[in-house]
């Protein structure tokens, strides 16, 4: 099996789709000559030309909005919003248009649009370049939401997002781009709505997304030294959610920790906790613990930034709290 970085894996899914399918094209800021601010689309201009690898003005509303229009007309646009902080500028088109055309038209139209974006803290950009806003979109019926954490997943899920007939908001985590991992020779589409069990365990389930999947795996290894057996599950798709896999895991371990980099309050962990307590109330031996950022805009100074965002130790401490409640 070849090894790809997370960045290369995204690029691989994009190039294969572009190669196979004339209706696929990319739009976004600085994606052409520069290859994107995260170097994800590097080389694509050379292979596919400026008609299909389109640099746009700084117009996030129009980038998403024109993607919607083209999608309805039978194209499969993949648009890039450079930082997820700037998704806020395209909210109207995403929330009121992309998500609703299907229903408002009584099923006449479909919007096969993929909106790729990235974010994540830990590099001191300050408050407007590292937010994690994925949970906002989980609140919007009509959208699908993906957050991939490994090279294999990001490639297979992006493929499925591109070929899904609905608008998909596709989150990548900035700190994962250099991460290497094995991927199958042939691109295996990964169905949206299917969680991945990264590690089996019997004492507590950590349901983690994005960077926190890796922190959870590290925390699990450390917990193991103390004789705590941790299962780590990555939902991968937040909407639709694979409730079955997650609930089954918690019914087995009887304890649960949710973990994401986004702030805890109103974060995706709240939704997970609600789903789990309802479906597995009688199985729970401890309150569900939620790990995430503290409730503050990200401050610049590294010591303050690190204090706000969750670390491996926070996951480990949460694991310990759940097992302490025997």
């Amino acid at each position, binding site marked *: 099996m070849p090894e790809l970085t997370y960045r290369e894996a995204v690029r691989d899914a994009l190039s294969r789709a572009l190669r196979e399918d004339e209706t696929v094209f990319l739009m976004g800021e600085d994606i052409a000559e520069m290859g994107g601010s995260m170097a994800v689309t590097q080389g694509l201009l050379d292979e596919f030309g400026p008609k299909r690898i389109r640099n746009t003005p*700084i117009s996030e509303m129009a980038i998403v909005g024109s993607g919607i229009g083209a999608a309805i007309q039978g194209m499969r646009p993949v648009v890039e919003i450079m930082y997820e902080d700037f998704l806020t*500028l395209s909210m109207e088109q995403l929330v009121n248009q992309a998500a609703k055309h299907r229903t408002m038209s009584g099923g006449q139209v479909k919007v096969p649009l993929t909106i790729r974006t990235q974010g994540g803290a830990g590099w*001191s950009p*300050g408050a*407007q370049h590292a937010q994690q806003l994925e949970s906002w979109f989980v609140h919007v019926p009509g959208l699908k939401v993906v957050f991939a954490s490994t090279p294999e997943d990001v490639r297979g899920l992006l493929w499925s997002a591109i070929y899904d007939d609905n608008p998909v908001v596709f989150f990548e985590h900035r700190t994962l781009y250099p991460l290497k991992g094995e991927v199958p020779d042939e691109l295996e589409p990964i169905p949206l709505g299917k969680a991945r069990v990264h590690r089996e365990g019997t004492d507590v389930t950590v349901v983690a997304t994005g960077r926190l999947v890796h922190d959870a795996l590290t925390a699990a290894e450390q917990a193991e030294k103390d004789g705590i057996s941790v299962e780590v599950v990555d939902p991968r798709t937040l909407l639709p959610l694979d409730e079955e896999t997650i609930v089954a895991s918690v019914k087995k371990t009887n304890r649960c920790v949710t973990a994401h980099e986004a702030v805890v309050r109103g974060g995706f962990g709240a939704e997970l906790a609600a789903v789990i307590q309802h479906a597995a109330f009688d199985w729970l031996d401890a309150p569900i613990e939620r790990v995430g950022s503290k409730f503050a805009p990200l401050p*610049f100074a590294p010591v303050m930034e690190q204090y706000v965002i969750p670390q491996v130790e926070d996951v480990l401490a949460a694991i310990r709290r759940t097992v302490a409640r025997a």
Partner: protein
Amino acid sequence: MTTVEEKAGSGGGRVSKEGLRGFFREMLLIRRFEEKVEERFRAGELPGFLHVAIGQEAVASGVCAALEREDVIASTHRAHGHSIAKGTPIERIMAELYGKVEGCSHGYGGSMHLYDVEVGNLGANAVVAGGIPGIVGAALAFQMRGEQRVAVAFFGDGATNAGTFHESMNLAQLWKVPAIFVLENNGWAESTPAKQHLPLPVDELGKRALAYGMKLIEADGQDVEAVYLAALAAREHALSGSGPVLLHLRTYRLVGHYVGDPQVYRDKEEIKKTKATKDPIELLRARLELDEDELASLDAEVMAEVEASVEFAKAGTDPKPEDALANVYAPARKMDRGGLHA
């Protein structure tokens, strides 16, 4: 910061030689400050994400010299020059870049969020065009209270493609608020050249004012005197009650978009040629006929200030981790049915 009087001199609104020397010194200070920032970033001392405005110093200097202390500005991701020219001491900016409590945003902001409300810097924005509407509102507040103050938004050519920009221009003109929209047109939006993001020739970008019936004033952004005089005229117009101004300044980015940008998208010859012909500091030096000795002693003076700012910053106080939560909300106020008590 040199004052308007010092720079303006007398005689038909043209700037005296002394005034120009004041500009020269400030522009050199901004240049050396930013070169030092690049150097310290490369040395791994500065965290975060940095954009310098090397080549655009005349815009910051010329515009801010035309403003009064009580006038306010909103800056962009390329904020160091604006902040220095509006009057924040460089050691407080350097301390911010080092994430120190003594920094102008107390370590919370960083390079893209320099604030200094006392000198009228309402903050730099990392969201392109993000600061523009707030400037319309600031100008509205001045207008409503009958204050003789202007509010000034700095932004680039790339920002004129944001809906935020267009909505702000329209509203400002509709209500004739005393705002100045300073279009710092360097012909690039990150890696995207004007011809890929503007449907009109780059030099004609000022035409966007016409769509809103807004007064347009244009000047060569590499000529600090021209910028200064244009900004004075813009301020006068904005305060006259006839509405805001789009101040279009053509300028040049002599370096990468961000510190460390290899500029793979840019023709190497073009960079070389632009550096050789458009450097506003070189242009002013030639005009002032500063000889090597004069230049060297001025440079030494400025460098000493810059070095001192680094020393100040390094000796600064690190915030406590838990301070992260200290500034999320303003403190609660006492209230009763009668209204607010201070």
